[in-house]
């Protein structure tokens, strides 16, 4: 507004609702454009096909203004990274600087995730930050992919990059570039993906400067502040509508890869007026295996779960966090000490989300689903391709199934809500790696039964066509299953099977091993939990699932009390009703 600009003094900028709406939309467009740039220019399959990255704009204090529809788990971790950059480089940030970091103990999450942060200047005055976080397919360390669950200290996990200048005043820091290039197994992909991050950060910078030119610095920052207030206000309104009280839920991780002891994630949600505390007191102490989650990542996971229970109108900005306090005990798996290993911490994040959603189901059942597959399964296959003598690393991620909702079934073949990831095309995978895919399919009968069933898990079966390959798998939900809600049953456990068409050896959820040519590895992912009483499931829906081979006749009989007519296909409606009554009576007896 011109009149506000003219009054360059200290009187507050009047926030015009129209300009406000226009600016909000402009920021959402910019982050989206940044995200599209990464996708179209990246080199590694994990970034360009699986889309494991995020794009964010921050204000000049490092507070998030908007995030693209990318990996949600990164959203809450950006503030901590920004805090480190802002405090460590206070007073020395210059135009043309670009910062990177990946150290989990200095603003990062795990080593493969490199944060790139580009401060935006107009003249000499800081206007904000353009941020892109990308999961690189290798950061060195003992296992290809730098993602192993079975490391025992951070020093095994790869190259740690403390907060550093990758560019200083526009000049590349060749030492740092060399250091990275030298320490990773596939430097072309890593350097190419850094280029993609920089391209996107540069677009963010250009667009913020356009906004400054259009609105003037003073007015623009006043609107940025108003946007954060708006995020906070909507969040508080949502929370205020929930009944005050403490809501608890505990979920488990199967084990850390060294021990099979279930690892508890305990969550208490305390709703108090228009603010909310998520307290993880009682959760497991930090563990030996690499599934410890830095506190920034724990917060990130908790925020996004709470966000799922709020209205769709709530924007993706830092104002949301003002209404939410997250606490986790020190030295715990959710707030570990250096040098605890953290590479496979995403798993813990997924379980934090499950635990928080489990507690929120008591507050906002209409927005919450039963547990999904429990987070993506990561399969890393690395070695040397004999034909080309080139190193190769495949980091493949298997997603996913949603649990049953209050009024409809879960979704199958879908990203975990904590990310927004895609999958790697089979034909791309086969053209690039010495691998052949033997199956990629929905897994029948894997759904948790319910009035609304969970989504089916997926199965993916690989044949390895190279010699002496390192195979590393991170899977969970082999023992502690995706929970059902309101009488719904849990989903089926996940499994790793070696040589499924031959000797069929079942392997643990998390392992690293050397395998030979023609090894076949199959992963069967857990299905989503059910929602509501399986005996109340609509017969039409059951018939449809039977017809589509998503469930078997046996499943329908046992889980849903279905009785078939003599043809073995048609449902005997009266017989089913009688059998269901009988099953309910049994249940009643058991309860007594």
């Amino acid at each position: 507004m011109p009149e506000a600009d003219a009054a360059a003094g200290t009187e507050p900028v009047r926030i015009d609702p129209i300009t406000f709406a226009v600016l909000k939309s402009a920021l959402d467009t910019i982050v989206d454009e940044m995200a599209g740039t990464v996708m179209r220019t990246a080199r590694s399959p994990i970034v360009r096909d699986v889309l494991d990255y995020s794009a964010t704009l921050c204000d000049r204090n490092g507070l998030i203004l908007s995030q693209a529809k990318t990996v949600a788990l990164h959203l809450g971790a950006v503030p901590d990274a920004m805090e480190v950059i802002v405090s460590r480089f206070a007073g020395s940030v210059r135009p043309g600087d670009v910062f990177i970091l990946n150290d989990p103990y200095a603003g990062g999450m795990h080593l493969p995730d490199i944060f790139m942060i580009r401060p935006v200047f107009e003249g000499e005055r800081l206007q904000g930050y353009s941020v892109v976080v990308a999961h690189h397919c290798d950061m060195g360390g003992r296992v290809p992919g730098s993602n192993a669950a079975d490391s025992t200290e951070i020093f095994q996990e790869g190259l740690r990059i403390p907060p550093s200048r990758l560019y200083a005043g526009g000049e590349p820091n060749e030492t740092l570039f060399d250091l990275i290039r030298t320490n990773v197994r596939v430097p072309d992909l890593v350097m190419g993906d850094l280029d993609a991050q920089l391209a996107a950060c540069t677009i963010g910078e250009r667009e913020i400067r356009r906004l400054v030119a259009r609105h003037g610095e003073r007015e623009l920052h006043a609107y940025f502040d108003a946007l954060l207030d708006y995020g906070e206000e909507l969040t508080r309104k949502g929370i205020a509508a929930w009944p005050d009280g403490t809501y608890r839920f505990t979920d488990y991780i199967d084990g850390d890869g060294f021990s099979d002891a279930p690892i508890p994630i305990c969550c208490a949600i305390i709703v108090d007026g228009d603010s909310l505390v998520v307290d993880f007191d009682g959760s497991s102490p930090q563990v030996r295996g690499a599934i410890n989650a830095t506190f920034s990542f724990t917060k990130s996971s908790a925020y996004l779960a709470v966000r799922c229970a709020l209205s769709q109108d709530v924007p993706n900005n830092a104002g949301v966090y003002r209404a939410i306090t997250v606490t986790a005990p020190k030295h715990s798996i959710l707030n570990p000490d250096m040098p605890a290993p953290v590479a496979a911490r995403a798993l813990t994040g997924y379980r934090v989300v499950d635990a928080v959603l489990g507690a929120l189901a008591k507050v906002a059942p209409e927005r919450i689903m039963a547990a999904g597959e429990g987070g993506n399964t990561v399969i890393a296959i690395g070695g040397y391709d004999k034909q080309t003598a080139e190193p190769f690393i495949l980091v493949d991620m298997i997603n996913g199934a949603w649990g049953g909702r209050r009024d409809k079934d879960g979704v199958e073949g879908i990203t975990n809500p904590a990310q927004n990831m895609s999958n790697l095309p089979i034909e791309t995978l086969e053209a690039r790696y010495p691998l052949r895919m033997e199956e990629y399919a929905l897994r029948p009968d894997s759904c948790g039964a319910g009035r609304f069933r969970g989504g089916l898990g997926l199965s993916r079966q690989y044949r390895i066509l190279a010699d002496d390959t390192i195979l590393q798998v991170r899977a969970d939900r082999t023992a502690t299953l995706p929970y059902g809600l309101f009488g719904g049953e849990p989903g089926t456990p996940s499994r790793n099977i070696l040589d499924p068409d031959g000797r069929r050896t079942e392997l643990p959820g998390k392992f690293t091993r050397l395998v030979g040519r023609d090894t076949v590895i199959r992963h069967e992912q857990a299905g989503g939990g059910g929602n509501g009483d399986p005996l109340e499931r609509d017969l039409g829906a059951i018939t449809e699932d039977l017809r589509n081979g998503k469930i078997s006749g046996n499943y329908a009989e046992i889980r849903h009390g279905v009785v078939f007519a003599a043809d073995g296909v048609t449902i005997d409606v009266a017989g089913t009703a009688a059998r269901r009554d009988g099953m309910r009576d049994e249940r009643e007896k058991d309860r007594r």
Partner: protein
Amino acid sequence: MRETGRIGVDIGGTFTDIVLFTDRGRTVSRKTPSTPLRPEQAVLTGIRLALEESGLEANDIVSVLHGTTVGSNAILQKRGGRTALVTTRGFRDVLEIGRLRTPGMFDLSWDKPEPLVPRHWRYEVSERIAANGAVIALLDGQQLLDVGAFLQAEGIESVAICFLNSYRNPAHEREAEAILRERFPEIAVTTSVAVLPEQREYERTSTTVVNAYVLPVLREYLVSLADGLKAMGLDAPLFVSNSNGGLAPAALAQEKPVFFISSGRAAGVAGAGNLGTRIKAPDLVAFDMGGTTASASLVKDGKLSRTTEYEFRSGISTPSRFIKAGGYMMRVPTVDVAEIGNGSGSIAYVDDGGLTCVGPISAGADPGPACYGTGGDKPTVTDANLVLGFLPDRLAGGSMMLDVDAARTAIARHVADPLGLSIEEAAFGIRAIANANMARAIRAVTIERGLDPRDFKLLAYGGSGPNHACDLARILNMPEVLFPPAPGVFTAMGMLSGAIEHFLIRSLQQPLDRIEPATLQAMTRDLADEAIRELSARGHDRDAIGLGFEIDLRFAGQDSELQVPFDPDRLEDEIGALRPRFLELYREMYGYVSRDGVEAVNMRLTASIAAGTADIWQRAPETVTEAGQRPAERTRPVYFERGGGWRDTPIFDRDGFAGPVTGPLAIESADTTIIVPPGATAGTDPAGNVVVTIDA
């Protein structure tokens, strides 16, 4: 000599537009109500009326050019044929699994669209081809025959065949096609290599399935239409506009309907490009605004902006080119249109946090905007425009009265009161937010591609586009806005200016610097021969065929390509020029280039023939008075500026308007109202366009 004519037909949701253009330069246009259940009825009625009015006989018509929404409606309303999929063992769920992503986030109530082929109609057979094209397992013919028997028993009308890695070796798909066609001739067959011989199984399967699904419906429609035309004595060739903005014979549309899903819309953009070239305005943004959505598309150097894939979805697609989710994926050449869920019927509301929003929910035609008095009580963009004087209080040439009080009440209740604003301020806000939303569509095709909107003129058409276009031009600093003579039937006009196109693609898949000139030469020759053979067989003169070659290039390891044109006649020079040309395009788009190797992915050929025998845009001049512009006979108060209050605004009729007149003014015709804000100047050009110069 007898006067002959060509007919352009565009079927819309509400009206079917017919434009008849004769070789003597006469134009007759007709709008008839659409007949969604039997769309050909409205077409035939409209053509009959247009013939009557023109005095031409049916056999004076030399061609009928057609844009149809039958394909998109079949998907939208799930009314395609009974369709099956045959695929490689282990992979029947590829179609349903898709690419996993969700278009929004934090929304656990989201649902994926139902696959067009349900799981029980997706059959697996034993066969396998490796990534290098080698056969690992032979196709099991007996299994295929068993599958055929199932298909027959299930009453399947159309089957898609998609095997893994068939883009490297199509032998198994061809074999399966031959077997099924021979033994089950009543079932239509689409192989994936016939529509999209490209890597990526989900995209290829989905494209093939859309083709198979739409095929029976589009075929039935086109046959009925041809029969109806024949019955009235109209035996001229029938062409259908494809998603790429070109025209192709109806026979091709029956065989490969997936290339024709965005049939009409693309023709409008093609028309914009054509008009632009004619009037020496090669750089344009074509802007169309309807009831539910607004869309923008780019024309640069006279060329349409195109993309190689898009998703069809039932809801609204945003101009985001990043999110792929929630639709039916088609990798086919398509005019790149950014669409946003904001049209004249979009509803305005204030959310819980006090943010004013417009769209994407639309009042549509039913219940309609509050001012229509047809049951709607929510404020829409149309209501805001009416309250502010941007629209007259009667539409469609006076046949429809609008209720200003109802519009004011709706705006007061839902926007002005909650925000503590006056009704005018709130209405102005609604219009401003709608403008900001629609500007996103224009941004998506300009700024997001590194192009400065100031270098483009805005061409506005559709019923509502002209009402907002000057505001959008101001937001984006665009210097000039063009309004074609009949914005309401512009798409049908566009078809009459279109070119016949034939599209071919071959997989290259190798580093650019390792391609032998001989390989490239052989491939260009093969493609050219095939295109010329195909078009000659349809009776086209070989010399009239223009060939445009492009190579899809990317840096080694990337997944997205840029289309780089090249000239096959100067192959030796061109091979060296491809890399720098790619780098230039790449830098323009992404702001940097890499030193890495460049990969060639596909070669594309678009063979085209200009279809027009006369120039549709060289219209007989309007009845312009020699003495210059007469002053307006009436005025109306219009609320142009917030705080600036009402301006008494002269209202001109489009008929007889010549200009120049400096704004504020409005120019009205039966199908639209052009708004020219204060400071801007409206004139006309020789082609009959209204041209508005926006003040800097």
